[in-house]
């Protein structure tokens, strides 16, 4: 379904050093943000990071295994639900709740993976969509546990992270670690196998690779990262309701990933920033902000179908040549 747009240099020795430097600069710059932004904007920046992780986890599958999932919002939301439930109802400490949330998301992703990996293209899209809807249905109807339509509330965020800035730094640290882990993952031999599967499943099979097993592991790992984002989101909002696991959440994640650039991995953060900023700025002026959002997507698809980062990268490479 997706094809690589920009030529990618892999395994060149000097590359890692330069990339590390750039990454370090970006992280330091991001860490300085709370000193410049207002309290509310720091909140938005936190949300950008959380949704960036979600979009990135979708990109592992979409950009590197050629499978676009519409079920990741649900995986993300399962983690949010478990964290809120564990802290408010079961009284677990935040760290344990966090781990439980990520674990639950990973298990759900594994189940999704078992069912979905044998399909590809639009069938994969529909199957993950359906699986996500099941999770949404359970959250909506299992009132005794999930609180139904009203959801669950409580003080989930640990006391030390109570202010917007400290929480932002915690999320930034997690995002940096998680993003690095995902980057390593897609560049590992395993990640290369996924790319091989994306480009030609039959060739990989004839070369002796166990395609379904690779996809299953890829899906589960991707779900693990979505779970991390979901657990952070629980601490961000102190609240969860079925809209967190709804289809709209999955779609938003996919759109962020596409806007940033499929297969660029870090484009996810740019896409998340673009969409969250748009949502919050435009909605102050008109209630028809969703229309503006829609038009923006159409424009991105026409003028930069490879996404914002993809386009930038393509332009830069052309200039260098």
């Amino acid at each position, binding site marked *: 379904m997706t094809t690589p747009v920009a030529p990618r240099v892999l395994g060149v020795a000097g590359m890692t050093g330069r990339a590390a430097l750039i990454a370090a600069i970006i992280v330091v710059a991001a860490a300085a943000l709370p000193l410049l932004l207002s*309290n*509310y904007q720091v909140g938005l920046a936190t949300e950008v990071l959380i949704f960036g992780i979600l979009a990135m986890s979708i990109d592992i599958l979409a950009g590197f295994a050629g499978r676009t999932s519409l079920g990741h919002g649900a995986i993300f939301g399962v983690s949010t639900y478990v964290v809120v439930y564990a802290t408010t109802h079961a009284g677990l400490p935040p760290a344990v709740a966090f781990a439980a949330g990520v674990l639950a998301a990973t298990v759900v992703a594994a189940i999704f993976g078992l069912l979905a990996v044998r399909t590809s293209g639009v069938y994969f899209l529909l199957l993950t969509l359906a699986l996500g809807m099941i999770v949404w249905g359970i959250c909506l109807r299992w009132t005794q546990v999930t609180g139904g339509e009203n959801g669950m509330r409580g003080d989930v965020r640990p006391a030390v992270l109570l202010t917007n800035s400290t929480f932002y730094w915690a999320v930034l640290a997690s995002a940096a670690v998680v993003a690095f882990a995902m980057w390593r993952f897609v560049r590992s031999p395993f990640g290369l196998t996924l790319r091989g599967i994306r480009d030609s499943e039959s060739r990989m099979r004839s070369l002796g690779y166990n395609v379904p097993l690779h996809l299953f592991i890829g899906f589960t790992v991707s779900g693990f990262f979505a779970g991390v984002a979901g657990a952070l989101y629980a601490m961000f909002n*102190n609240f969860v309701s079925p809209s967190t696991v709804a289809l709209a959440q999955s779609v938003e994640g996919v759109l962020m990933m596409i806007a940033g650039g499929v297969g660029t991995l870090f484009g996810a953060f740019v896409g998340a920033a673009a969409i969250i900023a748009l949502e919050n700025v435009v909605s102050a002026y*008109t209630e028809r902000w969703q229309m503006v959002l829609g038009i923006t997507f159409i424009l991105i698809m026409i003028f930069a179908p490879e996404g914002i980062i993809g386009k930038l990268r393509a332009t830069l490479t052309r200039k260098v040549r």
Partner: protein
Amino acid sequence: MDRRQFLKNTTAALTVAGAGVGPWRSAQAQAGPIKIGLLAPLTGVVASGGKEMVEGVQFYLDRVKGEMGGRKVELVIEDDASNPDTALQKARRLVEQGNCHMLIGNLLANTGLAVANYVKGTGTPYFIPIIAADDLTQRQRIKNVIRVAGYSASEFTHPLGDWALKQGYKKIATISQDYTFGHEQCGGLAQVFTEGGGEIVQQFWHPLNTADFSPYLGQLADLKIDAVFAMETGADATRFIQQYSSFGLKAQTPLLAAMNGTDQSVIRTLGEECEGIISPAHFAEGSDNPVTQEFAKEYEAKYGKIPSLYGFSMYSGVMWIDAALKKMGGKVEGRDAFIDTVLKTELDGSPLGKAVKLDAYGNPIYDVYIRKVAKRADGKFWNVPVTSYPNVSQFWKYDPETYLKQPPYSRTFQGIKKA
């Protein structure tokens, strides 16, 4: 009128004195405007109700010329998109960036609960004239969340249960949307009705947005019952009332509804099929009380429709806040004093037609009307009071402490007394 226009109008009308003062600076200056953050669903499933909420607030501010407690008012409107995550995001924006002195609004219970949980941490006064979730003023009460001119879900169905007993009804079946608002309203009726010797024969719970009620109506028709209680909102209410009538049940079994089922927002679009439905409420637009009549008439002249629950509640809610601000000379910056004053303020001269006060839990005590849908001279339908129950609190005749010990109403707990 779109939202941009709303904003233009309010800004023009309300910020004469505040002109040139940046919104971020206004919070420091006592002389600056009072900033009210209004959260309403202007998009999403309940957008039409959200628009009427905004109208209600604007209508009041127009009448007081944009001034409350001697200070100019600046209204900041945000769309909660009928979604709790968005509502939370917008509440943060209004408080942290907009420096609003208070928040008001939200329609859906889940959006209100999300915002309530947020203001619990910030201490921002938050007024909820529409959100009916029982526990916000009961088991999970937050002091700075006050239900001015609103009602808790089971508050009106308690007296309806009593009224049903007085009509000599012995057996009732209920049908309701399957979510908390429905569970709570049905629970109120079921508890009072069964404790008084009545019997709840069967309870049907259907998902929101049910297009076809025939499976339920077929079963209702077969039951030997004296009345049906329906708890429906929005498009479900419209469809239910239409189908109840076309199945011929209207002529056979009396229909009792929750107040939202026969609200103007629903019956405005209906004809004969809604005539005669009984519902309990604190407000009846067809009441002959002069204040109510004046309000309904002016509202209709201005917006071209009879006021609904949404317009009316927001109007009265803002009026309540204004009454409190007048008492304390507009000093909205002293949050604790402001909250205490609102809690102690008795609202007089509202379209309710009678002075209203809050109970110790921040929920109003009303004279509850039992209303009947009747045809007006011009052919439009509205709710006319049949009888009224004076001074009804959210605890009905129960002792608050004992009442709060029982679990909240849910699909599994309806307060039904075993015979």
